[in-house]
């Protein structure tokens, strides 16, 4: 079990290696922004402030190569490889 710190709220939550950061956040009761939750829309775009993640398959339109090169991730596709810190960058519409 890894630890994910959500910088927006200051909370640190547990997240299994086979869970996405979004799954961990929702399970912890955090109102993390998301819409599609499957790598298609980009609503959960986040900045990886520290640590490393692996990314599940996603659509090109959801995360550009430039965004990825700048350390941005999709929380719905990112699985922690260790303890990580993230900041969500937008608020998804509900």
């Amino acid at each position, binding site marked *: 079990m890894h630890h994910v710190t959500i910088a927006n709220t200051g909370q640190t939550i547990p997240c299994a290696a086979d869970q996405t950061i979004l799954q961990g956040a929702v399970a912890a009761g955090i109102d993390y922004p998301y*819409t*599609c*939750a499957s790598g298609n*829309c980009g609503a959960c775009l986040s900045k990886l402030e520290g640590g490393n993640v692996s990314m599940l*398959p*996603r659509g090109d339109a959801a*995360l550009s190569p430039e965004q990825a090169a700048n350390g941005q991730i999709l929380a719905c596709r990112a699985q922690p490889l260790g303890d990580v810190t993230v900041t969500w960058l937008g608020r998804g*519409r*509900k």
Partner: protein
Amino acid sequence: MSVAPRRNRACAKLLKDVNTILTIEGPTPSALHAIKLKLVALANKIDLFPMADFAMPVSQGRNHPLAIEDDDGMGLYLTINLPGKEAAPHDHGIWCVNAAISGAEQHDFFRRSDDGTQPGKAVIEKLGTVIVQPGHGMAMADHDIHSTAVLGNEPAVGLALYGYALARFPSVVWYHPEFASVRAGVSRRPSVTA
């Protein structure tokens, strides 16, 4: 010699035929079935869609515009989804027809079964599955709900025809059985002015 001129003519012919169907009947179930058969017939002409003409996704999913009508017209795309690519259950808010060129994609269909009174919450139940593979397609009405997942180890390449171009899509509504939640995406529809 490039097949692009032949492909463009074939795509334009499809849109013309589809407009004829829609003008007569509107997007009824029988009309969408007829449109699906026409899209399957176009996808079967695989010589019109050589992969060398279409860049692979940078990540795992990419749409290439083939024919986009003006204003509120339809959008026809060639879609490439790599193994592992998926989409959670969603409602486009506009009708959609798919047909496979190569590979296979699983489409599961759902209906919403809660009363919709809890904001942000939803329950859906699965109705059935269609495998979109060469020679086959699927059609869905404006508010049908489907999820997609690429099957096997081969890219799923296909044609997707939507009632509106993607750039003018309504809000797509996404359902998440795992979270019992529903979220609506941002509408790309032009704002209506008085």
